[in-house]
């Protein structure tokens, strides 16, 4: 056995494990911190609720564009006899929190983090808009399918999309060639 190589591999593995645990620890700490910020009443009342109201308004416009008689009041959307209230957990903020925590926990430059998060946030909101519009449509036309679509299918799909966005972004960070003189020198 080549002890020198074995030693080098085991050192590389353990440093890889340390980085992995480090990422996970930072991710959990950031997620809890972001949760406290979002759950804090002034932030919830002055940022999250108006943002959710905006989602409801845009969704109402999209629903009317496809011929649904949607009426929006605050965070509530009514279409015919069916109505939904967009609450926390349905506004894409939870997936955005995950993305923000993961992007910040991952070793990358601040500019890459900012661009990654902003593009990811926009993409998540587009998918969430499709989710809200489709759920209102399902609730009105296929009410038997609403519960499973709402709880399991769409929630999982939006979160998986957020995770995929993060993995795509993270893989681009690891593939980026060394550009700075220090990186080129392998320091």
């Amino acid at each position, binding site marked *: 056995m080549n002890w020198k190589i074995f030693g080098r591999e085991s050192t590389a593995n353990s440093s890889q494990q340390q980085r992995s645990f480090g990422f996970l620890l930072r991710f959990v700490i950031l997620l809890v911190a972001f949760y406290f910020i979002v*759950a804090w009443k002034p932030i919830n009342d002055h940022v999250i609720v108006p943002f959710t109201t905006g989602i409801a308004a845009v969704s109402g416009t999209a629903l009317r564009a496809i011929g649904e008689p949607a009426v929006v009041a605050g965070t509530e959307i009514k279409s015919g006899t069916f109505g939904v209230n967009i609450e926390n957990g349905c506004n894409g903020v939870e997936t955005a*929190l*995950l993305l923000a925590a993961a992007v910040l926990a991952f070793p990358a430059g601040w500019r890459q983090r900012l661009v990654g998060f902003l593009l990811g946030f926009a993409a998540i909101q587009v998918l969430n808009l499709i989710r809200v519009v489709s759920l209102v449509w399902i609730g009105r036309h296929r009410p038997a399918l609403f519960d499973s679509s709402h*709880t399991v*299918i769409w929630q999982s799909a939006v979160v998986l999309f957020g*995770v*995929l966005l993060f*993995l795509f972004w993270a893989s681009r960070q690891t593939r980026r060639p060394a550009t700075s003189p220090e990186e080129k020198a392998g320091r």
Partner: protein
Amino acid sequence: MLDRGAVIRLVAGFLLALGFWFLFSGTYEAAVAPAAEVLIRLGESPAMTRLEAPGKEFLLKRADFPPGAKQPGLPSPDLHFNFVLLAALFALHRRPWRTDRVVKLLLAMLCLYAVHVVFLVFEVESLYSTRFGDWSAAHYGRFARNFWAGGFHFYQIAGRFAAPFAIWWLFGRDDPVQASEQVRGPRKRKKRRSP
């Protein structure tokens, strides 16, 4: 890690997991409820709580509820649908059926089971501490109310989505650098041409 095949595997894994979840969620709930019940009763003197899983909800039965009183039901899919996320993430791997991957998936599922049991305890205690008026105020202080209700709210907003990701990161993820090298194949050294 994220080639077109990976996305197809993720979607296929998601659909398979969804089918599995719809078929076996009732059986799974029957395994989560007793474990949570044991933990809740550990903190009670005398032990009063009984949890049943008749399907789609956890029924909370207390021995000291008045006869004929309505038994609170806690919706169960919200607690454990994140199994679908975990299984879909494991399907990202190029060969998810390999024995070592299946073992890792089983270990990850065991971790997620522990998460479900713990947060079912949080859900029940959150109900006890905030929804029973004077009884809640008499049995739970301000810190306890915030601890149980805040813990369960964290799970609802962020934890239930973060748990499968964190568990997958720990057990099932390929290192992004290694994975990208697997996709590209081993590097070949360019031969130097003599001038």
